[in-house]
């Protein structure tokens, strides 16, 4: 076997992600007046996670299963990388599309290694290449090599779920279908698996169709979210932020939930909103200048920083005496640019402070975050970067 080919299958050098397009899909079941899916059109860009979400009976799983022809559409077309799949041989098409389902469906009579190797074996890879790929995937999902020889019955629920994902990834498919892949596990492990998967997706950049009934999971996992209502009607197809800022109608608004303002906090990072400029002063600066700076902001304090612009302490009226600013030791609450707003707010509340010093990767001051800034963000008074689709004011009240 050519070693270069094996290399190319590795997660580090993955195959190009595919684009996916559903065109005017209609699915009717005989004997039913209502279509399961009525005229659904959807485009998913390469490397994006598209979450299909909606109440039960909205056709989200049906829509996903159309993509690998587990269900045939009544009319309409599905294109992967611009080519219609309708005339593809189903078994061959499916080998090119990763498939993970809620019940996982591991084969209890096969070892973990054999389970993971399912699609590569169907594709006729030779033994060595399969063994290498299994090793690589065990690594990727964080399972010890020794687990490969075990049977699914010997693994915990979370481990089985990981194996299910590894099995779906085995032949490095450019497109993956995942139907509530983290649905059957407890909330704590689910959260961990979600985070792991997002980290993984950061590396492998697959195009993914992800089905869930849980709007919080949708917001967390999705680059774009398609909210479906009963009868497979697309209610809104938008980024999570757009969905939260500007729900298209009452149905979406209800589905997204009354606490969507708080959800937005989980979605945005500190760097996404307008921070206040920090009134920084250094040791040796004239006190009068420091006082002027402090007075120019609503904070009323100056921020003492060291030579590298790292925050040291807040300086209040009592600290700003004499000719020149002198060194002070003091505590302050710091948050990072990459923190999500929810966590940053939690830090401020925990520190019982109004203001948090925002630092960048190097620990240097990037600005000041205040509870006011966050509440302003929630009230849409402070325009962050997310309002590409500004909502009518009454929706945000």
């Amino acid at each position, binding site marked *: 076997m050519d070693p270069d080919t094996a290399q190319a299958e590795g997660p580090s050098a993955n195959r190009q992600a595919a684009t996916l397009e559903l065109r005017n899909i209609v699915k009717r079941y005989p004997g039913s007046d209502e279509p399961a899916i009525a005229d659904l059109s959807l485009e998913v860009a390469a490397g994006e996670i598209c979450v299909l979400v909606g109440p039960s009976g909205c056709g989200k799983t049906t829509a996903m299963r159309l993509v690998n022809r587990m269900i045939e559409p009544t009319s309409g077309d599905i294109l992967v990388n611009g080519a219609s799949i309708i005339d593809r041989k189903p078994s061959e098409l499916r080998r090119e599309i990763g498939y993970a389902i809620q019940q996982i469906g591991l084969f209890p009579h*096969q070892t973990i290694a054999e389970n993971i190797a*399912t699609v590569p074996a169907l594709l006729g890879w030779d033994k060595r290449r399969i063994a290498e790929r299994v090793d690589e995937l065990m690594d990727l999902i964080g399972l010890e090599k020794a687990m490969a020889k*075990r*049977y699914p019955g010997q693994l915990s629920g979370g481990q089985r779920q990981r194996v299910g994902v590894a099995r779906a990834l085995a032949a490095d498919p450019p497109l993956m279908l995942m139907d509530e892949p983290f649905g059957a596990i407890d909330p704590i492990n689910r959260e961990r698996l979600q985070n792991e998967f997002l980290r993984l997706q950061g590396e492998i950049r697959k195009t993914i169709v992800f089905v869930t009934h849980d709007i919080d999971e949708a917001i967390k996992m999705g680059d774009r979210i398609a909210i479906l209502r009963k009868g497979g009607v697309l209610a809104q197809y938008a980024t999570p932020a757009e969905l939260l800022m500007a729900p298209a109608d009452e149905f979406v608004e209800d589905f997204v939930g009354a606490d969507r303002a708080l959800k937005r906090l989980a979605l945005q990072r500190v760097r996404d909103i307008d921070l206040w400029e920090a009134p920084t002063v250094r040791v040796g600066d004239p006190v009068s200048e420091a006082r002027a700076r402090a007075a120019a902001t609503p904070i009323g304090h100056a921020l003492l920083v060291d030579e590298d612009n790292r925050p040291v302490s807040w300086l209040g009226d009592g600290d700003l005496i004499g000719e020149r600013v002198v060194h002070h030791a003091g505590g302050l609450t710091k948050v990072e640019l990459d923190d999500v707003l929810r966590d940053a707010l939690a830090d401020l509340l925990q520190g019982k402070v109004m203001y948090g010093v925002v630092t960048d990767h190097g620990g240097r001051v990037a600005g000041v975050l205040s509870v006011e800034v966050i509440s302003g963000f929630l009230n849409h008074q402070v325009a962050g970067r997310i309002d590409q689709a500004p909502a009518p004011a009454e929706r945000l009240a």
Partner: protein
Amino acid sequence: MLPLLAQVKITDRNGAGQNCVQQDGFCPGWIKDHIGDYVDPLVRHLELTVVSVVAGFLIAFALAMLAHRRRWLVAPITGATGVMYTIPSLALFGILLPITGFGFVTGCIALTAYNLLVIFRNIMAGLDNVPEAAKDAATGMGMTPNQVLRQVELPLAIPEIVAGVRVATTTTVGLAALAFIAGAGGLGEPLIVNQNFKSNVVTVGVLCVLLAAVLDLLLLLAERLALPWRRVAR
């Protein structure tokens, strides 16, 4: 049927424990001296059982494969094999004798017919009990229907299939004791010739039980060896 019975040679009652034997009693000494006379009937009994179970399995398996893809066939096949199962064995031998004549083949045909229902039903139950998720995953990952059957459904149905074969084997060992009526030999032959002689009856009985037990154990052992995944904690 008399000429057949006359050929049986275990009518010799001479030898040790004369008195015991005269009274048709249970005579360990006599059994010890004559155990060799039971070897041929035992071997024949084993042959009848193995041939009938294997033939029954092959036919039932073929029927199950047909019915698996065409569910409407399940009811008629269950009905037909069920009828075979309910015909009294004596009657079945009677029906077969004019067609296939006296002998081993007739015995095997009858015993095979009795096996079909239980094996067929267990194969179907085994296939039906395969987790839906495993089948869905297999299909969704690109297995053809035949690959799903061979790589997922049948391996997972093995425990139930083996259970059916074990029941069929034990039942056949018992039923084969009647196969001598069709001229197929087996342990029923020495039994019927001297059915009042306790030593004879006990010997035949014990051999039948031992045969059934040994075959059952062998099947169980084979299943355990073949299915490592069943041994792990679930």
